[in-house]
């Protein structure tokens, strides 16, 4: 490789080269068009203007903010605010529409479900999970089993007033006695009633213990869970004959439940969320696949508080 400063001319092209040569291959010094150079200068001028107008240069503790005052955070805030303004009429319409009538307005219902999906991710996933599938002690909201009712109005009431909130008179309230701990039943009686529950839920065949338990059930449990054990939504008493168990359907878990009782709590949201958001959450939960139609019978529709057991 020769490095010679005197320019040489490549015979074939008439272009000069610097004398660099690798295995007979020479690098030509083809001149750039002048306008290309000017284009390069123009980009430099643009870059200077850009640096002045927009946030650009890192400083010791801060960075240059730019004369336009633009920032990505500011842009996001502006977008969010614009979205809020855009959504305001929809939220107002949802807040003004009785939840029972929401289903009659597909556009509003759709917006409510989507809004509820977003709100659920913020307020509800901590207990019910991101897919609303719940976990032990926290109900799965996708299924068709409801403690307090699965129509839109009932769900909205549950979210609004919560379950077993001591500071709220209208909260959903019911109390299962701790039959074993409080010595209402003996250990043998509890075992018998557990055997009965295992039979009515179809997990065991009838036996001597379950037959003894049937009478104990009728005396102690049927007042809330019903004579057949189908439960009652008036008092949030679960159906003991279906395939869904909030805490577990094995004999040990049922024994613990009867012995100690369960007192699950859900916070009320009426002091934290506005009407529209609660309505959206109700619409979303209803849309997950287990939502029920509003009860046709006016008598059967509980008006919010269902604390008082029916005769």
């Amino acid at each position, binding site marked *: 490789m020769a490095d010679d400063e005197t*320019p040489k001319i490549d015979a074939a092209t008439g*272009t000069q080269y610097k004398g660099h040569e690798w295995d007979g291959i020479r690098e030509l*010094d083809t001149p750039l*068009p002048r306008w290309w150079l000017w284009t390069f200068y123009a980009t430099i001028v643009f870059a200077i203007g850009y640096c002045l107008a927009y946030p650009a240069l890192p400083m010791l503790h801060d960075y240059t903010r730019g004369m336009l005052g633009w920032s990505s955070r500011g842009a996001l805030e502006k977008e969010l605010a614009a979205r809020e303004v855009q959504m305001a009429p929809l939220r107002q319409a949802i807040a003004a529409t009785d939840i029972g009538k929401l289903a009659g307005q597909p556009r509003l219902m759709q917006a409510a479900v989507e809004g509820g999906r977003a709100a659920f991710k913020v307020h509800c996933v901590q207990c019910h999970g991101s897919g609303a599938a719940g976990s032990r002690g926290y109900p799965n909201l996708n299924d*068709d089993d409801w403690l307090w009712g699965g129509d839109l109005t009932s769900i909205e009431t549950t979210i609004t007033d919560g379950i077993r909130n001591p500071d709220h008179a209208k909260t959903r309230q019911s109390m299962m006695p701790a039959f074993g701990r409080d010595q209402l039943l003996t250990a043998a009686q509890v075992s018998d009633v557990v055997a009965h529950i295992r039979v009515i839920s179809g997990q065991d065949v009838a036996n001597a213990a379950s037959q003894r338990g049937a009478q104990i059930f009728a005396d102690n449990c049927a007042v809330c869970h019903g004579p057949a054990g189908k439960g009652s939504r008036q008092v949030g008493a679960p159906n003991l004959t279906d*395939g869904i168990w909030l805490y577990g359907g094995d004999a040990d878990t049922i024994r613990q439940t009867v012995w100690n009782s369960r007192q699950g709590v859900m916070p009320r949201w009426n002091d934290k969320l506005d009407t529209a958001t609660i309505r959206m959450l109700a619409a979303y939960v209803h849309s997950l*696949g287990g939502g029920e139609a509003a009860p046709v019978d006016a008598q059967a529709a509980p008006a919010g508080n269902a604390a008082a057991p029916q005769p």
Partner: protein
Amino acid sequence: MLVPAGSGDLYEKRKGVYPKAVDGFYRRLKWAIMAATLVIYWGTPWIRWDRGPYAPDQAVLVDLAHRRFYMFAIEIWPHEFYYVAGLLIMAGIGLFLVTSAVGRAWCGYACPQTVWTDLFQHVERFIDGDRNAQIRLANAPWSADKLARRLVKWQVWLLISFLTGGAWIFYFADAPTLQRAFWTGTAAPVAYAATGVLTATTFVLGGFMREQVCIYMCPWPRIQTAMLDEKSLVVTYRNWRGEKRGSVKKAAAHPGEFGDCIDCDQCVAVCPTGIDIRNGPQIGCITCALCIDACDKVMEQVGRPRGLIDYCTEDDANRERQGGVPRPILQSLLRPRTIGYLCVWTGIGLAMLFALGARTRVDISAQQDRNPIFVRLSDGAIRNAYTVKLRNMEARPRPMEVRVDGLQGAVLWTDAMARDQAMPVIAAMVPADSVARLRIFVAAPAQAPGAARQDFRFTVRATDREGGHDAEPARFERPQ
């Protein structure tokens, strides 16, 4: 285009190119191609094509807002983009074919840069006069006359540029509607922006950048040059016949000493990229063949045979140089390489036509809910949920039926139904040219033979007279 020997400049000053008007076979061919391409470009969006009440009636329409591409009887949906990919592959192989056969014909005749530069140069000649007048005017100091001519020329260029940029937007919306909206100021901002940008680029690239685009900016000359071989037709100066150059007078005085080239420089004068073809094949040559027209005319005038500059393959040039006879042109055009390209090109075209003819205009896709994967119902059955999309790609509403295939005891219902309305089949009316989105719940018994995960298929069938069906594999998940 090359720096003078020994100047040592890193940057090259722009050399003025003032191509002279010329007439001849290739000039007329260029006129015809220019007319055809411009008519196609400006006229296409205005062709109407009746597709019934549910689809636009513009023959060629790229409907970005609704994600549809219409081309006469063909309608392409976004998921059928492979047809566009196929067209691009055909365009690529077409380029290989054309280039290996007739060299840079695309550059010389059909490239928009060539066509619009040609048009702008014609305007220039109309206003400023031919080559010599243009050079005189360029070198003249600024005067009222020069300013007036420049302003008129730029205005005409600007008008053409505006019409060019403005025509582009009509491919993306209903042309008559958009034109009305454009003039009343109610068109979408992007329409004005696109028109503005394309007007500016047409004005600058066609009026001022011209051959600089071909020589410095465009990658195609490099690609095309790599695809030429010794059997490709290129514009060739028959230097064995032309050298040594000398005027008619000199040749008469010294018979036998001079070749046919009389060194009149007409080939250089007419060249739109300002090169001298007598230096041999070079990157600046777009093979527009105007130098052939110019040289033929001169040769006729001096009574020498035409074809001193001509389309010729490198093989033939070597053959002629050694006194041989060139082969028939068809023999150069038809050779294994070009025939191979032609076969591939035709094959892809026919395959696409077949696929277009056989494609079904009903489509189903299903996506399973992943969170939760399954839900146990109160009666013990297991429910999975799916978002099912039914595509109706015809321009009329169609009734369809969705079923599951291969899932025993399964029942279906949608989020608009209750579970007690569940059935083995779901009927839906899918609106014209659109996608119906169904949320479908599938419940099946908890106990099933085999694994917890079971494969099955969603099937859709159009229940109108024309029919059509599609299937989509899916999975049903149960607790372990």
